[in-house]
């Protein structure tokens, strides 16, 4: 029941920090051609699945984004008429088109959601990891219990918080208004201006423990002598944190940043379970918009074009991320 295994694995074990491929050590080249054939056979099942479920359908999605695929043409599947760049033009520039304003809303909401959720997860995760890195009675049990929110499935998180946010019977308003009188009136959380925070806060709550776990493992790997030597040289706790701890954690921060941004941008379950397929203009995220327009309104061409734009945006993000953290990744591998 305790996390006592946060120790270095036997050898250069590596699940997250080394996700980017690294050149293989030269000595491995000695392997014979026969072994190479074995290697290809070993990756075959995974490769086949990735091609059939990821690669080909993604190409199909790009094709659909140039087609006029809707309720009337759906029966023809990929035989639907071509539409050129019309889907893209409607989304990006056609202000008379309701899809355009919906897209702008969702883009703004997704930007707010992703920024606040990722910042909350990383800053909160690091702060709590520092707190958990101390010695105290029962700290192992506490570390384990801290992981609980991460194991609660997203759809349960969303139903639970949807209930807690209820204006009249929800526990949050009961605490804020009835018990502590922090607020004089009962805020409405699930509709209107507050609704974005109704999905941001549970997302941070669920994502934070995992970041904490990773940062805690990183903190425990920082050699104690570094801190002791710096303390002897007169560095205070804050200086030791910014000059020793943070630089050593940079590779972990980089990986957490990359994957949390992707995960938050593609978030779908939490808003949909909490608020339904249309969370309203203040909480509609890119994914809820795209899925609603595709599967409720059958605007498949629009959905695919918006997906392509979203994927391009993600590609830009990864490129920026890679430029910013390339050196940390080289150090890590």
């Amino acid at each position, binding site marked *: 029941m305790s996390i006592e*295994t946060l120790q270095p694995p036997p050898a*250069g074990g590596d*699940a997250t920090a080394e996700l980017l491929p690294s050149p293989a050590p030269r000595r491995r080249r000695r392997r014979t051609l026969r072994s190479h054939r074995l290697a290809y056979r070993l990756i075959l099942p995974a490769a086949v699945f990735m091609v059939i479920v990821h690669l080909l359908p993604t190409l199909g999605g790009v094709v659909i984004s140039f087609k006029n695929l809707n309720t009337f043409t759906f029966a023809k599947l990929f035989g639907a008429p071509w539409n050129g760049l019309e889907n893209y033009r409607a989304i990006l520039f056609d202000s008379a088109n309701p899809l355009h304003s919906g897209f702008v809303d969702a883009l703004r909401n997704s930007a707010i959601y992703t920024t606040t959720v990722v910042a909350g997860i990383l800053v909160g995760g690091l702060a709590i990891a520092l707190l958990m890195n101390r010695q105290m009675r029962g700290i192992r049990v506490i570390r384990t219990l801290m992981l609980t929110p991460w194991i609660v499935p997203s759809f349960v998180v969303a139903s639970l918080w949807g209930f807690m946010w209820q204006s009249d019977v929800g526990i949050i308003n009961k605490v804020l208004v009835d018990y502590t009188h922090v607020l004089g009136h009962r805020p409405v959380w699930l509709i209107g201006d507050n609704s974005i925070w109704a999905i941001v806060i549970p997302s941070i709550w669920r994502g934070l423990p995992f970041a904490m776990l990773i940062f805690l493992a990183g903190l425990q790997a920082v050699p104690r002598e570094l801190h002791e030597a710096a303390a002897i040289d007169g560095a205070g706790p804050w200086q030791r944190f910014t000059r020793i701890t943070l630089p050593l954690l940079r590779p972990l921060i980089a990986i957490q940043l990359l994957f949390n941004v992707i995960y938050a941008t593609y978030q779908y379950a939490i808003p949909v379970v909490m608020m339904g397929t249309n969370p309203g203009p203040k909480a509609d995220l890119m994914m809820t918009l795209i899925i609603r327009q595709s599967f409720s309104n059958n605007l498949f061409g629009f959905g695919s074009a918006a997906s392509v734009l979203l994927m391009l945006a993600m590609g830009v993000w990864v490129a920026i991320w890679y430029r910013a953290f390339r050196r940390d990744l080289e150090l890590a591998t």
Partner: protein
Amino acid sequence: MSTYPRAERRRPLLSPRARKRMVARGLDALTCLVLLVMIAPVVWLILSSLQTEGRLSSGSYDLLHPTFKAFSQMWREIDFEHYFVNSLIICTAASALATAFAASAGYALARYAFRGSRTFSAAAIGTQLIPGSMFLLPVFMGMVWLGRHTPIALIDTRIGMVLVYTAFFTPVAIFFMRSFFLAIPRDIEDAAQVDGCTPLQAFVRVVLPSATPGLVATFVYAFLFAWDELLFVSALTQTHAETLPLGIRLFIGNYQEEYAPLMAAGVVSTIPVMVAFFATQKWLVRGLTAGAVKG
């Protein structure tokens, strides 16, 4: 106010050691407070599930008299067992398949430098960059096409969902398994091959058994994510292969705000992943944090 620092300098209120201890106690208290805040919603989930619908919707909780009524109500009102069994079967099968594929691919990446290995790794990471909305529709259309032109029925079947989920969770699992294989010394395969094993036999008979913790951790990791998946299952199933995330929505959608059974369903939906996590926690945490610590 301004004389306070001078007074302190003359005769410190607390010795440095006592002050240090005070700070430590304060941080201990803060740690407990943070823990309390983090687990409070889970505690609230459990407490609410033990109330009746009437108490929850009127806001008059009676925490001293828990009742299991909501659980039986939830089981009766929607066919909860149907969703639960589907989730168990689909997620178990998909996680097992994904772990098997990831083990073999992860082993290839850990042991062989073959041409295309970097492309393969990059492609596996690349799959994580694709939004689900991008390939959901083509997957759906492909399944519809297969159903029309061949006897392969994938729409609204457990097999269809298993295949999709297997593909979803294999890429990340590959890197998971690779890290576990890198930690296993190469000597044991060399010894096995000296004893007359082919490389494949050495992998299956010698390396895989010693990678059991890694296999279990990878399986549980995939299971946690598969259990959570909502988007694809909502588009690719109708009546036969729906899983828990869809079942639980019935309390929010079709019925009106039935919180007690909803919370009860939430508790029951969380139990399998909780059990899986705590049973394998030692291995899972080691696998998750392997990248964080450099030996």
